[in-house]
């Protein structure tokens, strides 16, 4: 184990903890809005980089590199959509969701769904689904952290995994959203520097991109094709479409990512954040896939493709730089894991415990529930990662396909389609999640040549449209929600009548009571 590597890793942790502590002291955690959304005061660059570093997880350093190593240039279909994922997210729903969430007084992305589609069932289904899927996603981060740390430091996998879980837990407990956002900002820069350093080192080792491609072509010409090694994906446009969609439009369906819109300092922040997100992605996103492809030449006898980037770093870079790269990898893992755990805890405490179990819960009780669930998810993740760790790639593709399929139409239609109603959103979430889950679990990708993300999103979108239109008469969208949608669609300040979010809650309650009275009178 290199002392230099450990020095840089420790230095990185100290800096991250210092930034987190500074963010906590800076404020924003005095009340629930401060803790969960940083008091809605996050600016454009911080918004862009927390959005991107949360979206780009340990998958980028393990799954992406592994895919490049296994399939050659075919892997770049995933990068093709991913480059624009943040921009698409901010440009389509960013500004409107920021305004709507403030008008509705929503503090979590699941609460936002219930207030837009008024029904407890929306919050229950969305909350349970999100906790389950984010738990899976956290598992991928734990495995990535454990595997990476074991390889670089030389300690055993179980011990490395325990250290990774411990660090992530301490770090998550440090503070609320503001601490997460500002540490994400720093970590996104470390990720960018780290991955670019490996890419440049790999290209230098092989004499440049053209020389590397010539060598790959001599080894196996299909590695340069857009259809994968041995042309294994030839003509499978359904799989290609899913690969592009999953990390482009898919981000709009991830509850832990769309929360970033709700925390922006102003609705217009989405504009400048879109610019910075694109600049960052243009450099960062393709790099891990390319390093994985170049690893075919640098490490021809590699046993575990997901270790490609770690091994290339270890072989080509001096110890100090390897320490920096390891810090970058841990940054990718931690910047996603802390957001996932914070969201999972927030949803468990506010959307499930307070909403359905103990409506009079104090903030202290809610924090205890939140932290209890975070520890439970981490412990379960540790056991699964230890006993039978699946590949990071397979977990991330599974969790993100189901998340995107379940929630994409609900979040997009919430601000764009005035006829999107509660039955439509509920049916869309259930159908989208079920189709993507079954497609992945039953292995239908191979037999149908269709990606689960594609089938999931298409089925959830069709369901949203058909069910919403079919139930307009029995479940129309309430007038106060249509009013809020009208305000969010226009450029201008939020009217005074919407700024007291309690009015929106009262309107929600009144609608529910009115409906109950109407049903009673019909029964009578």
């Amino acid at each position: 184990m290199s002392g230099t590597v450990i020095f840089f890793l420790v230095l990185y942790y100290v800096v991250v903890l210092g930034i987190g502590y500074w963010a906590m002291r800076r404020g924003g955690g005095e009340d629930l809005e401060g803790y969960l959304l940083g008091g809605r005061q996050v600016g454009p660059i911080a918004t862009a980089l927390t959005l991107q570093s949360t979206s780009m997880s340990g998958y980028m350093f393990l799954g992406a590199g592994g895919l490049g190593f296994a399939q050659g240039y075919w892997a770049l279909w995933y990068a093709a959509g991913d480059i624009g994922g943040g921009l698409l997210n901010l440009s389509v729903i960013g500004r409107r969701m920021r305004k709507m969430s403030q008008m509705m007084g929503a503090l979590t992305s699941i609460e936002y769904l219930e207030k837009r589609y008024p029904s407890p069932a929306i919050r229950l289904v969305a909350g349970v689904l999100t906790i389950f899927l984010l738990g899976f996603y956290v598992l991928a981060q734990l495995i990535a952290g454990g595997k990476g740390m074991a390889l670089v430091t030389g300690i055993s996998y179980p011990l490395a995994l325990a250290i990774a879980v411990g660090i992530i837990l301490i770090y998550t407990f440090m503070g609320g959203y503001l601490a997460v956002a500002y540490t994400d900002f720093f970590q996104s820069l470390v990720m960018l520097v780290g991955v670019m350093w490996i890419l440049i080192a790999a290209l230098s080792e092989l004499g440049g991109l053209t020389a590397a491609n010539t060598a790959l072509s001599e080894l196996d010409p299909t590695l340069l094709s857009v259809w994968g090694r041995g042309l294994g994906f030839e003509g499978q446009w359904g799989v290609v479409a899913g690969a592009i969609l999953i990390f482009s439009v898919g981000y709009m369906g991830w509850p832990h990512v769309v929360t970033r819109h709700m925390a922006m300092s102003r609705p217009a922040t989405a504009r400048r954040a879109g610019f910075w997100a694109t600049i960052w992605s243009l450099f960062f996103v393709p790099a891990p896939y390319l390093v994985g492809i170049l690893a075919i030449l640098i490490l021809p006898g590699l046993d575990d493709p997901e270790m490609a980037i770690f091994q290339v770093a270890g072989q080509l870079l001096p110890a100090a730089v390897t320490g920096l790269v390891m810090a970058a990898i841990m940054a990718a893992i931690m910047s996603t894991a802390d957001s996932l755990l914070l969201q999972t805890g927030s949803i468990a405490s506010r959307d499930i415990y307070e909403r359905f179990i103990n409506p009079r819960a104090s903030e202290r009780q809610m924090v205890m529930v939140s932290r209890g669930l975070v520890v439970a998810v981490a412990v379960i993740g540790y056991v699964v990662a230890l006993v039978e760790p699946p590949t990071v790639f397979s977990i991330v593709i599974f969790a993100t396909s189901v998340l995107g399929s379940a929630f994409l139409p609900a979040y997009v239609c919430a601000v764009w389609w005035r006829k999107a109603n509660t039955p439509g959103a509920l049916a869309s979430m259930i159908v989208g999640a079920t189709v993507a889950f079954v497609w992945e679990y039953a292995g239908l990708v191979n037999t149908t040549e269709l990606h689960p993300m594609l089938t999931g999103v298409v089925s959830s979108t069709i369901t949203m449209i058909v069910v919403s239109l079919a139930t307009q008469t029995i479940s129309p969208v309430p007038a106060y929600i249509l009013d809020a949608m009208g305000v969010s669609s226009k450029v201008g300040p939020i009217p005074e009548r919407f700024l007291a979010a309690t009015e929106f809650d009262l309107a929600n309650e009144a609608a529910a009571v009115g409906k109950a009275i109407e049903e009673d009178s019909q029964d009578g």
Partner: protein
Amino acid sequence: MFGLPFETALLVFGFPVFWILYMVVFLYVSRRWDRDSATEDDAS
């Protein structure tokens, strides 16, 4: 280009160009968003 077949070069370089164009169009279309604000106080 860089020893890549045409389709692969299109995949590697075409998509980034597409997203840059998308960003330029977005920045143009949203040029008035700066007038937007969270509250009426901010606007004044």
